[in-house]
C-alpha cells in the first residue's frame, strides 16, 4: 500500500524528512510516533500528495508520487482519506452534507449517497445530529463527522494526523476503537500520534518512530508489517 524508499523532503529550507524508507502492507494499522517536529505530519503530507518528495521513490496506493501531477491528485485522494486534528469540517454545512460531499465529488448517484451516508452516520452514532450544522457540534462529534467523511468512501488507506489531539480520553478511546473496527474491514490505517495512551489502545499496531525527520527504529524501516508481526511472534 505504501512504499517509500530513501525519501527526502525539504520544507522551508530545512530537511523535514531524511532518507525515510517505509513499507506498509494492505490492511495494516501503523502508528507514526515521535516528538513534535519529528516529521510525522510532513510524512503524512507526502503520503496524501500535499508535498512532493525531493528525492527517493514513493508509491502510495499504486500512485507514483514522484511523477504525480496536480491533475492526478484527485485520483490519489480518492484512494487515500485524511483525518486531521483540527477536524477540517465545513462549519456552515450539516453533518449529512459534510459526509456526502466525499461521495458527490466521486459522482456517486444521490440515492446511493443517501443510503451510504445514513449507514455511516448510524455507525458513528450521529443520527440525531444528521441535520445539525457542524459548527453546533462538540469537538468529539466534529471529529466523528471527519472520520465518517473519510470512511464513507471506503478508502484503501486512511491517514490520521493526531486525530485525538483535541479530544478527551474517553472520546479518544472511542475513536481509536472506530479506526480499529474499520481496519478489521481491510482498510489500511496510518495514524500519527505522540500520545502513549493511544498507542496502548491498539497494541497490535506497528509503531514507526520518527526523530528529526528520520525513522529511528531499523526494524520499522526494513520490515513490512507481516514481517514485523512474524518477528514479534518469533521473539
Amino acid at each position, binding site marked *: 500500500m505504501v512504499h517509500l524508499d530513501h525519501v527526502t523532503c525539504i520544507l522551508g529550507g530545512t530537511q523535514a524528512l531524511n532518507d525515510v524508507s517505509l513499507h506498509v502492507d494492505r490492511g495494516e494499522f501503523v502508528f507514526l510516533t515521535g516528538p513534535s517536529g519529528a516529521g510525522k505530519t510532513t510524512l503524512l503530507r507526502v503520503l*496524501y500528495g500535499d508535498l512532493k518528495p525531493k528525492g527517493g521513490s514513493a508509491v502510495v496506493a499504486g500512485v507514483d508520487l514522484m511523477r504525480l501531477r*496536480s*491533475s492526478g*491528485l*484527485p*485520483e*490519489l*485522494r*480518492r484512494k487515500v*482519506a*485524511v483525518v486531521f486534528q483540527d477536524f*477540517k*469540517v*465545513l462549519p*456552515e*454545512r450539516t453533518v449529512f452534507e459534510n459526509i456526502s*460531499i*466525499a461521495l*458527490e*465529488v*466521486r*459522482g456517486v448517484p444521490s440515492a446511493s449517497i443517501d443510503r451510504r451516508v445514513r449507514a455511516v452516520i448510524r455507525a458513528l452514532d450521529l443520527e440525531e445530529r444528521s441535520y445539525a450544522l457542524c459548527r453546533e457540534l462538540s469537538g468529539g462529534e466534529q471529529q466523528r463527522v471527519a472520520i465518517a*467523511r473519510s470512511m464513507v*468512501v471506503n478508502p484503501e488507506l486512511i491517514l490520521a494526523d493526531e486525530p485525538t489531539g483535541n479530544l478527551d480520553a474517553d472520546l479518544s478511546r472511542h475513536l481509536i476503537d472506530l479506526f480499529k473496527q474499520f481496519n478489521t474491514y481491510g482498510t489500511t490505517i496510518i495514524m500519527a500520534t505522540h500520545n502513549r495512551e493511544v498507542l496502548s489502545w491498539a497494541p497490535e499496531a506497528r509503531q514507526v518512530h520518527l526523530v528529526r525527520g528520520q525513522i529511528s527504529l531499523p526494524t520499522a524501516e526494513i520490515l513490512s508489517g507481516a514481517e514485523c508481526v512474524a518477528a514479534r511472534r518469533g521473539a
Partner: protein
Amino acid sequence: MSTGKLMARGVADMRRFPLPQLCTLVTVCMVALLAGTGLLILHNVQQEVLKTQAQARFQVYWSASSNMTDVETQWADLKRVPGVAEVSTFTPRAAMAELVRGLANAIPAAPAPAENATAANATADNATIADGTTVPAPSPNDLSWLEGENFLPPTALVSFDIPPGEAPEPWMGRMYARLHNLPGVEKVTYNAAQLSLATGWIALIQQAAWPALIFFALVVALVVGNTLKLMMLARRDEMEILSLVGAKPWFIRAPLFANGVVQGFVGSVLSLVCLKFLQTWLRSLLDVPPLFLKVEFLPAWQSFSLVFATTCVAGLAAFIAARK
C-alpha cells in the same frame, strides 16, 4: 454531478457567506458605476458636440428676383436630399420680419415722450427731405417702413449630417457646388471653420475614448478581480476540503465561477440602475437655462457591454482565484 448542478450549488451557496458576498457586491456595483459614469460623460460630451457643432450648415441665397414658386419647389426638393437634418426657409417677407424682429431686439427701447416736451424739440427730431416735406423720424422700435422696401432674397439654411466615413471638407465642397448650381442661387455660404473645429473635437473625444475605455476596463478588472479573490478567502477551507476528498478542479471551480458570474451580473445591473438615477438627477440639474444640457443615458450597446464585461471579469477572477 453535472456542471449545471454545480453552478446551481455555487449560487445557492452564496447565502452561506452573506457578509463577504454583500461587500463584494457593493464593490462590484460601485466600480461598475464609476466606469459607467465615465462612459456616460464621454457619450454625452460627444453627443453635445455632434448636436451643436458637427452639422454642416449651408446658407443658400437666391436672387431677389427669383420666382418664389420655383424657389419653393427647390426647397421641397432640398428636404428630400439624403443626410439633410433640417431645412429652415425664409421667403423675403419672412426674412424681413426676422430682420425687423432682430433689429427691434437689438435697439434699446426709446423712452416714452415726456408730456411737457416742446414742439421745437419734436421738430428737431424730424427730417426734411429734398422737396421740403418734413417726415416724422421713425421710432427706433418701429421698423415697419422697411417692409415696403424689401430688398431681401429668399434664403434657406440647410443643415446636413455628414455621412459616416466621409471626410468633411471634400464632402462640403461637393455639396457647396451642388447647392450653388441650383437655378437662381446667387450665393452659398457654409460653416467650414466651425465644422472643422467640431471635427477636431470629435476626433479628440474619440482618441480619448479608447484610453478611457481601456482605463475603465482595467479598473473594473483589477478591483473586481481582487475583490472576488478576497471573497474566495472566505471559502478557502471549503476548497481545501474538497481537494482533500478528491474533487476534480472543475468540481471546485464551477460553483465559484458561478458565484463570480452572479456577483458580476447583479453588481453591474445594480450599477446601471444607480447610473440611471444619476443621469436623471444630472438631467434635472443641467437642463435649465442657460445650459439646456440634456444628459442622455448610455446607449443600449454600451450598457450591455458594461454588464457583459463586468460579468466576464468577475467570473474569470473567481475562476482564477479558485485555481490558486
